[in-house]
């Protein structure tokens, strides 16, 4: 990133000389928009997100509409990406399925973040027995390979869309907790915190309002990482037939039929475009995450 830093310094120098106008106040955001890959990531992300949210604008078909007169049709003018075994339009399924897959991924990541960050902020700032207990719980959860823990919980709770979001949130909070907690531990003895205490400001107010904002960069990076991970896991679970129930269209559920070798060999239009959509979306999230990390990492601010 050093070339990027140099570019940034040049821009800053020109700004100070009054040659160009300051466009954005936030340095991290500006740095992020100067990074080609993260801009590409944002564009792909927004395009896919918009197309999924506004799915009816892009397809006349419904994701669950069965049409037995046109089954397993290859791509044509009528069905851009063909149809599946019971005549459902694949393009429509990718768009509508994306809604659910993205909602599961992003939703679980956000819930896990709120849970983990608030626990980490409270427990990390207070310390003592509460911190000890939450730390032990997070250690135990992190000892499980993620996929195994998720499948164990699926066995216990049964399969449904809401259960899956619940399970992802439950397995996702420990890493967020660790991060928020370490931020609290490293900053709570700082002089500015002592000054705030001396002013008589309450503990939780200090923790959430004056220490937590320092962790905003890592928190956002972590959200992107978790979202990517949950989308991949939803796809894998649904592919195995253990994720979202099959009647709901999700990216993983579309791919589920590719377990059938004849479909895999002859009907590439069912699984390949869907697979590309998942991969592209996850790549875009990773680019955004990388860009955010580079832009907010304090060791990179020169």
């Amino acid at each position, binding site marked *: 990133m050093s070339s990027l830093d140099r570019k940034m310094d040049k821009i800053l120098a020109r700004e100070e000389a009054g040659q160009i106008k300051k466009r954005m106040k936030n340095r991290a955001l500006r740095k992020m928009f100067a990074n080609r890959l993260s801009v590409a990531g944002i564009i792909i992300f927004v395009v896919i997100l918009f197309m999924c949210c506004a799915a009816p604008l892009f397809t006349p078909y419904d994701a669950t509409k069965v049409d037995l007169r046109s089954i397993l049709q290859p791509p044509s003018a009528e069905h851009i990406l063909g149809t599946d075994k019971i005549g459902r339009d694949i393009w429509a399924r990718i768009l509508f399925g994306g809604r659910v897959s993205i909602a599961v991924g992003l939703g679980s990541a956000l819930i896990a973040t709120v849970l983990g960050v608030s626990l980490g902020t409270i427990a990390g700032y207070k310390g003592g027995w509460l911190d000890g207990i939450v730390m*032990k719980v997070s*250690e*135990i959860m992190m*000892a*499980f*390979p*993620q*996929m*195994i*823990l998720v*499948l*164990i919980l*699926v*066995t*216990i709770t049964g399969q449904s869309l809401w259960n899956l979001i619940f399970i992802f949130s439950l397995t996702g909070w420990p890493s967020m907790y660790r991060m928020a907690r370490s931020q609290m531990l490293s900053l709570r003895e700082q002089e500015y915190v002592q000054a705030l205490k001396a002013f008589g400001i309450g503990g939780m107010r200090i923790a959430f309002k004056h220490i937590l904002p320092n962790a905003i960069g890592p928190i956002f990076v972590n959200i992107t990482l978790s979202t*990517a991970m949950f989308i*991949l896991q939803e*796809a*894998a679970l649904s*592919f*195995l*037939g*253990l994720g979202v129930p099959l009647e709901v269209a999700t990216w993983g559920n579309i*791919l589920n039929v*590719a*377990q059938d*070798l004849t479909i*895999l*060999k002859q009907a*590439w239009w069912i*699984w*390949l475009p869907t*697979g590309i959509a*998942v*991969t592209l979306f*996850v*790549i875009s999230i*990773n*680019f955004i995450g990388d860009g955010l990390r580079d832009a907010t990492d304090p060791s990179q601010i020169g």
Partner: protein
Amino acid sequence: MTNYVIRKILSLIPMMLVLSFLIYLGIELMPGDAVDFLIPPDALSTMSETQLNEMRESLGLNDPFMVRYVKWLGGVLHGDFGYSLQSGVPVATLMKNHLPATIELTVTALIFSSIFGILFGVISALKKGSILDQMLSVVGMIGVAIPQFLLGLICINAFALHLNLLPVGGRMASMDQNFFERLPYLIMPALVLGFSLTSGVMRYARGSMLDSMGKDYMKTARAKGIPEWRLNLLHGLRAALTPVVVLIGFRLPMLIGGAVVIEEVFQWPGIGALFVDSVRAQNTPLVMMIGFFSVLLVLISSIIVDIVTAALDPRIKLS
């Protein structure tokens, strides 16, 4: 050193106790009555409530929870892991039958990803900014973003269904075949499983190699007239290896999670496929025991990583 190792191992015990309790809780939470699973359905319908109660009493199902837990834990410590609800086969036997396949797969994937990850990582660090470096980083980005099962499907489609080079799945055509005859079955699943792992190791190896190339001792060595290739190979690579060893250790949970999916895609008869089957059949005892052992494996390997790092890095004092 011995002290350090012993302390590390002892620190496992409380963790394992808590975990075993949770695992047992999971088995107990299983819907239904354990008696239903132990008696054939036709016998069950003819039994009266009092007979069923006697049955529960004799099986110890009416004991308090903690008593049952301690009994169960005692059994586990003696190698009695309970029975599969699907087949009635002891869990220990099932694990013993499926473990070799999983070890074969994961170890191959681990070796493959370590060699290629370090190799490509070091190459792209040495040729930083070149076309090769950029191509490798693109491959790496795709490697971490593509769902593993999708890569598996693409490979099956290309190499097995269209080119007919490799078998679609399974582990061997018939029993009693030596490793080299089984090799065609192993290639695809191991490469696919290793691929995303390779990307991670490659990124990391590149970073740590670049890091060590900028260090002062490299300049000193260069000033002493040591040839560039030797410098990179001996000093740079060695410093770059330590974090990579750690990374490989910490990737183990990912490897296990990946094996679960990949074994299912390639019909590989290992623990992962067994696990997915038992999740599908709500076979709680088997699911819980496999979960328990996967955690044990992760904890033990993290201790090994700690010890290896401590041994490799002279800055870490053990006493």
